[in-house]
C-alpha cells in the first residue's frame, strides 16, 4: 500500500519531466522576447496610436510561429545551430556577412537592455553610470558563477507577473474590448512616417535575428531529434504564437486606454508606467520599474551570450562558459565587448533612453530579412530529409521574408528621400 502511494507522485513527476525535457525552447525564447525593448516598443505603440497597430500583432504572431518552427526544424534535423548551417552551406564569406549582421543587431539589442536597466533604476533616482556598472557587474557575476541558468527563472517569473499585471490593469481601465478585438483583425492604418516607424519597431522586437539563433541552439543543445517535432511544434505555437503576442496585446491595450485616450505621450519611463495605474495606483512606477528591470536583465544574460556562441560556432572557435579565458579567447572577448560597449554607450549624458530602446528594435526589424533569407534557403536543404519545409510552410516562410524585406527596403528608401 505504501509503495503504491509513494509511486504515484513519482510517476507523475517523471512524466512531467519527460514533457519539460522537450518543451521549453519556444517558451523561454518567448519570454526573452518580451525584453526591455519589447515592453517599451509595445507601450509606445499603444500610447501613440491606440489600437491602431493591434493588427500587426496578429500578423507577427503567425510570422513568429512560422519562422520559429522553420528554425526548430533545422535544428531537429541537423543538430546544429544556425551559424554552423550557414557556414556549411554558404562558405566563409557569406558566413562572415551573416555573423556581422547578427552582431550588429544584437549589439543594438544589448544597448536597449542596458537602457532598460538605466530607465528602470532611474525611476528610483539611481544615476545612469551607476546602474550601467551595476547591471554589467550583476550579469558578469551571474554568468561567471554559472548561476544565470537558474536565476533566469526568477526573471521569467517576474516577467510573467508583470504581464499579468498589464492584463489586469488593462481590464480595470475598462477598454472597449469590442473595438480592440476588431482592431486585431481589421487594420486601421495611419499613413504617416511615425506610424510606419513604430510598425517596423513592433515587428523588429517580436521577430528577431537573435530569436532565430536562440531557438535553434536551444533545440540543438537539448539533443532533440526529428521524432520530437510534434512537442516542439506545440511549444513554439504556445510560446511564440500565443504567449508573446498576448502579452504584447495587453500592453498595447493598457497604454491605449490610459495614455493614448487621455492625449498623453511617452517621453520617459515614468510616462510608460502610467499604464499600470488602474491596477496599483501610485505604486505603478515601482511595479513598472521592477518589471522593466527583470526583463532587461533577462535580455542581458541571453543576447550577448547567444551572440558570442553564434560567431564562435560559425568559425569553429571554442565557445561556452566551461572554458577558461585562455582556451576560448574570442568567446569571452566578444562577451566582454558586448557588455562593455553597450554599457558605456548608455552612459552618454542626456541619451534619450526610451528612444534608444525603441530604435534598437527598428534596427532589428531592418536586419531581420537578411537572417530570414538564410533560414529560408536552408529550409529546403536535402539533408533535412522529412523535415524539409513543405507545400504550406515554404511559401508561407518566403511570403513572410518577402514582407519583412519590403518593409525594410521601403523604410530605408523613405528615410533616404526624407533627407
Amino acid at each position, binding site marked *: 500500500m505504501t509503495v503504491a502511494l509513494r509511486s504515484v507522485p513519482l510517476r507523475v513527476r517523471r512524466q512531467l519531466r519527460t514533457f519539460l525535457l522537450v518543451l521549453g525552447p519556444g517558451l523561454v525564447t518567448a519570454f526573452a522576447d518580451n525584453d526591455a525593448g519589447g515592453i517599451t516598443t509595445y507601450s509606445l505603440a499603444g500610447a501613440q496610436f491606440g489600437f491602431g497597430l493591434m493588427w500587426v500583432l496578429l500578423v507577427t504572431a503567425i510570422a513568429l510561429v512560422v519562422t520559429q518552427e522553420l528554425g526548430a526544424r533545422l535544428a531537429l534535423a541537423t543538430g546544429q545551430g544556425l551559424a*554552423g548551417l550557414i557556414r556549411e552551406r554558404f*562558405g*566563409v564569406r557569406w*558566413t*562572415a556577412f551573416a555573423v556581422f549582421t547578427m552582431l550588429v543587431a544584437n549589439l543594438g539589442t544589448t544597448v536597449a537592455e542596458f537602457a532598460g536597466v538605466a530607465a528602470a533604476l532611474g525611476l528610483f533616482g539611481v544615476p545612469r553610470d551607476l546602474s550601467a556598472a551595476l547591471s554589467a557587474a550583476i550579469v558578469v557575476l551571474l554568468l561567471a558563477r554559472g548561476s544565470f541558468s537558474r536565476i533566469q527563472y526568477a526573471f521569467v517569473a517576474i516577467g510573467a507577473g508583470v504581464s499579468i499585471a498589464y492584463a489586469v490593469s488593462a481590464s480595470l481601465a475598462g477598454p472597449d474590448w469590442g473595438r480592440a478585438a476588431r482592431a486585431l483583425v481589421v487594420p486601421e492604418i495611419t499613413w504617416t512616417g511615425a506610424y510606419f516607424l513604430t510598425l517596423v519597431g513592433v515587428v523588429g522586437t517580436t521577430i528577431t535575428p537573435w530569436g532565430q539563433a536562440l531557438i535553434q541552439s536551444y533545440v540543438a543543445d537539448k539533443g532533440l531529434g526529428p521524432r520530437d517535432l510534434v512537442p516542439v511544434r506545440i511549444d513554439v505555437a504556445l510560446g511564440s504564437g500565443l504567449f508573446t503576442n498576448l502579452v504584447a496585446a495587453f500592453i498595447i491595450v493598457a497604454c491605449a486606454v490610459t495614455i493614448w485616450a487621455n492625449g498623453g505621450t511617452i517621453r520617459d519611463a515614468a510616462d510608460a508606467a502610467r499604464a499600470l495605474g488602474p491596477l496599483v495606483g501610485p505604486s505603478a512606477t515601482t511595479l513598472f520599474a521592477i518589471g522593466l528591470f527583470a526583463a532587461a536583465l533577462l535580455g542581458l544574460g541571453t543576447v550577448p551570450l547567444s551572440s558570442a556562441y553564434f560567431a564562435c560556432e560559425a*568559425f569553429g572557435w571554442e565557445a561556452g562558459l566551461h572554458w577558461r579565458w585562455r582556451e576560448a579567447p574570442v568567446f569571452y572577448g566578444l562577451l566582454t565587448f558586448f557588455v562593455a560597449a553597450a554599457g558605456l554607450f548608455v552612459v552618454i549624458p542626456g541619451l534619450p533612453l526610451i528612444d534608444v530602446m525603441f530604435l534598437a528594435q527598428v534596427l532589428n526589424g531592418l536586419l531581420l530579412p537578411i537572417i530570414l533569407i538564410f533560414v529560408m534557403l536552408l529550409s529546403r536543404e*536535402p539533408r533535412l530529409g522529412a523535415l524539409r519545409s513543405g507545400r504550406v510552410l515554404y511559401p508561407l516562410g518566403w511570403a513572410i521574408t518577402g514582407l519583412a524585406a519590403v518593409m525594410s527596403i521601403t523604410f530605408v528608401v523613405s528615410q533616404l528621400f526624407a533627407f
Partner: protein
Amino acid sequence: MPYLSEIQHRRVIEPNGNEVGKLADIAVVPQGQFPAAQWAILSTPSGEKVVRWDDLAQEIGHFRLRNRLETTPDAQLPAEALRLARDLLDKQIVDTHGAKVVRVNDLQLSDVDGQLRLVGADVGLRGLLRRVGAESVAERVVGLAGRQLPRGIIPWHLVEPLESKNDAPAKTAAVRLTIPHAKLALLHPADIADIVEEMTADERIAVFQQLDIETAAEALQEVEPEMQAAIVSDLPEERAADILEEMDPDEAADLLQDLPEERRDELVELMEKEEAKDVEELLAHSEDSAGGIMTTDVVALPRGLTAAQAIDELRVKKPDPQLTYYLYVVDGEGKLEGVLSLRDLVVAPPETKVSEIMDPHVLKVAAETPKEDVAALIAKYDLLALPVVDARGRLRGTVTVDDVVELMLPRGWKKRSGRAIAR
C-alpha cells in the same frame, strides 16, 4: 604545399589552350594515412564532369587536360569517396589528438612521390583569412608587430571526418556507417562523450552503434543527462538494452528515469534478468534521494563467515575497485550489522569470524535521504562510500563518493577539469 582553396576554381584547359571549365572539387577515398587525389570534378558549361586526377596536369595558374575534354573518359565516383570541398570544407571533423570537434577552414594538399595527397586540415585563423583572400594582408599587419600568424593544421591521420554526402539523405545513414570510427574508439570515454555531444543525432547513433559495448556504455555515462535520453531513444532497442546492461546500475537507472514510461518498460524488459532487477529496484526510488543514486552492486558478507571464507568470496565475485573500500556484514535477513575494511580482513587470523573484526558502529542512511545530505555526510566524515538501508535496516546498496562528487563541486567543474589533464 597548395591548399584546396588555392587550386579550387582554377581554369581547366585542353591541350590546345582552350578553356573548358573550372576545377570544382577533388575526390579521395578516405583510406590510409594520407589519401591520394584520385578524381577531379570539373564544372563545365554542360554540367559537372568527373575525370581521373591523372588526366590532369598542374601548370602554373591552371590545369591542363592531357586529352581533349570529349575524349577524356567519364569516371565514376565510388560510394565511399569523399569530395573534399563538398564533404569536408566548412564541415566539422574530430581532431583525435586534441579530442575535440573543430571546423575545417581549408585543406592542405601536398605532392608526395609525384602524387597529390591530402595531408592536413587547416582549422586555424590562417585558413579563414585565406578563404576571404586576406591572408597576405593579415600576415603583413601582424608582421609589423613582429609576430607571426599561428598555423592551425591537423595532420590528416589524426582527423576523423564526421559528415558526408549532404545531398543524399536516403543513403546518408548507410554511407556514414562506412566511415570507420576506429580512431574515435581509441579516445578516453569522457572525450568521446564530449565529441558526441557536438554531433548531429544521426552521427551520434552511428557512433554508438559502432563502438564496442563496453566503451559505448562508459562513454554514454559521461554524456550530459538530457542527451543520454535522446541517444537511448534513437538507438535500436536491442543495442540500447545491451549498453544499459553494461552501465553501472545507478547510471542506467538515472538514464531510464528520463525516458517516457513505455520506452523505459520496453528496455528493462529486454535487459538481462540480473541487471534489470538492480535497475528496477533503483527506479523505485526518487532520483534525488540516496536510493536513487546508490548502486546495488555491494559486497555483503554473512556474519557467520570467517575471514578466510570472506576472502574466497571476494575472489569469486571480483567486485569493482570502488566497491571494495568497505565490506559490509549482514545477518540472516540482510540487516546491516557492521563494516570492515579489506585491510582488516587480510590481517585478521583466517579462522576469525567477520562479526568479530567488524566495526558495529556503521554510519548509514535511509533510502529516502536527499542526495545533498548524503554528499554532506560523505564529505564531513571523509568517507569513500556510505551504505543505504531500507526501513527495516536491511542493506540495499551503497553510495560511493563518485556518485556525489558532482554535488560537491561548483558547476562547470566536471567539464573544465578535463582540459587540465596533459595529453
